[in-house]
């Protein structure tokens, strides 16, 4: 039977699915752009069908779910394996306790069917400016562990993004895990605007993490998605919020600075002007949410 093709058929490629990390790094060795590492594959398959990419070799990480999966808390750190799926993140009690903004974002990625197979590591390595996992992770001060044959290194989440759909990984390197400080006092919240509630790319997404004690914000971070070539830490907003008075007026000031930090473009989803306005409104909403939670008994 000949299958009807809506998009062009996927061109032939060589497929490898290493069963150990050493086998993986042997497979990756000596290859350049013709090789593509695949995690869940949901972004990659669409890009291949659209002919945006045409890798000659695909290396599927799927047999390394033991080595690169899992969600655990150890020594004050919440560690999420790169192959953890968004469904696993959405339903993890550890994530709910220490990184609730990430849980909220994970629950909004794509659809149930996408969340069931799409992974955190894949979302970061794909490096979309609208990657919904990134603002929560940046707000929470998370780091990414990259693994290669020669060892491992750790980067702040925002440094994994080099440009739109361009990651900062070196040849032969993979995302191994994401580490988030496991501090129960930190409140983290996330929200976004999109053309539909479900299965839509974010027009703007915002995450805020902070602690409130004795009427002041402690260490705080404001992070933005889809308003710059990469997800960003809103630096002016972050500096203004950290250590400041926890008031409604301050929420407004920080939100206005976040809108200044945003450097959006106009595209099919929204104009740059509208995106800046969204950043202000959504950031204010999130800070007020943190304030009201801190006052709850």
């Amino acid at each position: 039977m000949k299958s009807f093709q809506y998009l062009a058929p996927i061109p032939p490629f060589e497929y490898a699915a290493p069963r150990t990390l050493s086998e993986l790094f042997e497979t990756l060795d000596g290859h350049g752009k013709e090789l593509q590492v695949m995690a869940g594959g949901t972004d990659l398959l669409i890009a291949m069908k659209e002919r945006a990419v045409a890798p000659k070799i695909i290396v599927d990480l799927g047999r390394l779910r033991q080595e690169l999966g899992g969600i655990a808390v150890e020594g004050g750190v919440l560690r999420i394996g790169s192959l953890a799926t968004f469904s696993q993140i959405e339903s993890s009690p550890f994530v709910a306790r220490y990184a609730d903004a990430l849980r909220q974002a994970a629950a909004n990625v794509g659809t149930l069917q996408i969340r069931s197979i799409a992974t955190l590591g894949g979302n970061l390595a794909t490096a979309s400016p609208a990657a919904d996992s990134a603002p929560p992770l940046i707000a929470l001060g998370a780091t990414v562990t990259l693994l290669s044959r020669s060892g491992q290194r750790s980067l702040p989440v925002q440094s994994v993004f080099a440009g739109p759909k361009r990651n900062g990984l070196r040849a032969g390197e993979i995302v191994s895990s994401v580490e988030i400080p496991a501090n129960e006092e930190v409140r983290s919240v996330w929200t976004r605007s999109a053309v539909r509630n479900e299965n839509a790319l974010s027009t703007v997404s915002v995450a805020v993490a902070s602690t409130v004690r004795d009427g002041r914000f402690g260490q705080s971070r404001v992070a933005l998605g889809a308003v710059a070539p990469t997800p960003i830490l809103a630096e002016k907003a972050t500096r203004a919020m950290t250590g400041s008075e926890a008031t409604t007026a301050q929420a407004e000031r920080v939100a206005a600075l976040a809108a200044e930090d945003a450097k959006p473009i106009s595209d099919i989803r929204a104009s740059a002007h509208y995106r800046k306005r969204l950043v202000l409104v959504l950031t204010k909403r999130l800070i007020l949410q943190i304030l009201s939670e801190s006052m709850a008994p």
Partner: protein
Amino acid sequence: MKVKVSFRLNGASKTDEIEPNQTLCDYLHDVTGTTSVKKGCDTGECGACTVLLDDMPVTSCLVLAPQVDGREVVTTEGLGTKSAPHPVQREFVEKDAVQCGYCIPGMIVTLSWIFEHAPGASDAEIKRLMSGNLCRCTGYLQQIEALKAARKRG
């Protein structure tokens, strides 16, 4: 170059030598004859090709066939039979939840998963969970009714 895959399809072990550049959707429908698996959008938007992969619903058009090696795949054929249907399949008939039928196998796979794994889900939560299955005929209400009836009668 062909690759070897061994997996379980609707409870039966299957080993095959396959070309890797085909989606699970095309492989199941065209090669194994599992014709409940429908291709709608081919980009993971419509859900017509939904199958369970290790008991999680996935759009099989966004899975490469070799990714299922060592794993378990269930389609609506594997959920129940004509004489012993899954409660959700039975109630789809009872509640007239089918019109043209193209989205139905994928819809049943998703709703059977909600039936098993989210028995307490509210209407809003059911709608969120089934938002990856588009139906252009029914308006979804009969399908939600079918799920609720399945919960009630088991």
